[in-house]
């Protein structure tokens, strides 16, 4: 479904990703783990078009993502829940969701998508007239995920959805992943919470200093990760 080949990217003269190749197959949940500053967020930004790679290929269901204007990548079926949520704090929950469904095709389905999102997050329905910035961290994360689901994505990119949340809320977020996948959405998730994420994904990549250092089934990495914890500090 998603294929990255030899992707290099960075900020100005600083290179953050070095020849990253990665694949996500339809229906899978794939994790990207790695220490702080490894380039995980940069990788997500490259996929959703927030930054353009300096080299490499990127395709989504065979379509060349790099030939698509960045603001139309969401129409290819890719939705990105950015790191630290990035809601529009002074807009209501429902206006935030409306922004998630901005693309022309999504507008036509607004009511239908809204019903799906409210079904998944009944809490958001209760709070739909409330300013997004006034909600708790967990509710904001649900709103951020809901906003991404408004575009009816086939691939959902989640960048550290559990960061800054209380442990019970973290469990809830990970449990939701199952529901989202059951709806047929493929997931690529970045997490610092290595142990927990490796229990919900099938495969994972270990990124360090901008390079893929290991890849494999979640179970294998889980064992390996225990070993690596000592010297990687992840």
């Amino acid at each position, binding site marked *: 479904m998603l294929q990255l080949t030899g992707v290099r990217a960075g900020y100005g003269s600083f290179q953050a990703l070095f020849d990253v190749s990665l694949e996500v197959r339809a229906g899978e949940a794939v994790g990207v783990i790695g220490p702080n500053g490894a380039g995980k967020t940069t990788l997500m930004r490259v996929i959703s078009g927030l930054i353009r790679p300096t080299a490499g290929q990127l395709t989504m269901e065979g379509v060349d993502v790099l030939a698509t204007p960045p603001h139309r990548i969401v129409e290819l079926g890719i939705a990105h829940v950015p790191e630290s949520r*990035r809601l*529009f*704090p002074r807009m209501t929950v429902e*206006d935030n969701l409306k*922004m998630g469904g*901005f693309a022309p095709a999504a507008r036509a389905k607004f009511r239908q998508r809204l019903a799906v999102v409210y079904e998944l997050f009944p809490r958001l329905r209760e709070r739909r007239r409330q300013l997004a910035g006034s909600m708790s961290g967990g509710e904001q994360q649900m709103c951020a995920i809901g906003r991404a689901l408004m575009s009816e994505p086939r691939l959902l990119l989640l960048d550290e959805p559990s960061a800054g949340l209380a442990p019970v809320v973290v469990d809830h977020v990970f449990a939701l992943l199952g529901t989202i996948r059951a709806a047929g959405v493929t997931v690529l998730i970045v997490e610092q919470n290595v142990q927990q994420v490796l229990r919900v994904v099938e495969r994972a990549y270990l990124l360090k200093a901008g390079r893929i250092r290991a890849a494999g089934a979640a179970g294998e990495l889980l064992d390996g990760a225990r070993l690596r914890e000592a010297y990687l500090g992840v």
Partner: protein
Amino acid sequence: MGVFDIYLLEALINGVLLGGVLALLSLGLNLVFGVIDVVWICYAELIMLGMYAMYFLASVYHAPLLLAAALSIAAVGVLGVLLHVLVIAPLLGAAPINQLLATGGVLFFLQSAATILFGIEFKNLGLRLPVLKVAGMFISYSRLLAFAAALIGMVLVYLFLSRTYTGAAIRAIAQDRQIMTLMGVDSRRIYVITSALGGGLAGLAACLLVLQYDVHPFVGLSFGPITFLICVLGGLGNFLGGFVAAFVFAEIISVGGLYLDLEWGYVFAFAFFIAMMFVRPQGLLARRS
């Protein structure tokens, strides 16, 4: 009610009427700043050109007033887009000081161009609108009209911002510029639409101001600084703050002018502004953060 009270009430009412027009003036500037993050220093010069458009269409070519107003608003809206495409867009990545200098340069360019094209004589529509006498107070019909039109203009903008997808994107982009791409929004398009809207609001303001004031190439200097101060007082880019600040300013001018004379009203208003900059530098309705 004593005579004194009637004067005070009249001043308060005039303050509200002035406030409506000032609120409209500040809305255009605020909108552009909030969305594009650039201050149109030449905003009042767009208004000046709109006033000339009204003058030529209505007084020289004898177009009906409403038609002249519609054409003037559209013309200044187009000017707003041209300003954006020709001057702002190429400088979006540049340092803010360069953007200020560039729109400042446009200010002098427009003043000089207007002087060459239209001369320095004061022009007006030659309309003599009646003065209403209500309960012993004198309320100018043109101010009432300007207030009503400003209010209608602001309500329309409010509906646009709150009801449409483009309006939602305009509000959203003012809160988080970078992630608009993820929402499927082409920011460049939103900038152009906002510039058209900002220009259109300047055009509407021009139509209302030309009912009360003569137009000349330097007329922008009479509204530009006060509009800018209102936006700063309300918190640049904060639409509601600008709205409140416009009425606060207008009341100070109007009521202050009652006790001394109008010039003193402005002195009080600017003194208030300076004092507020010490007390609440982030603007009247600043959020604590």
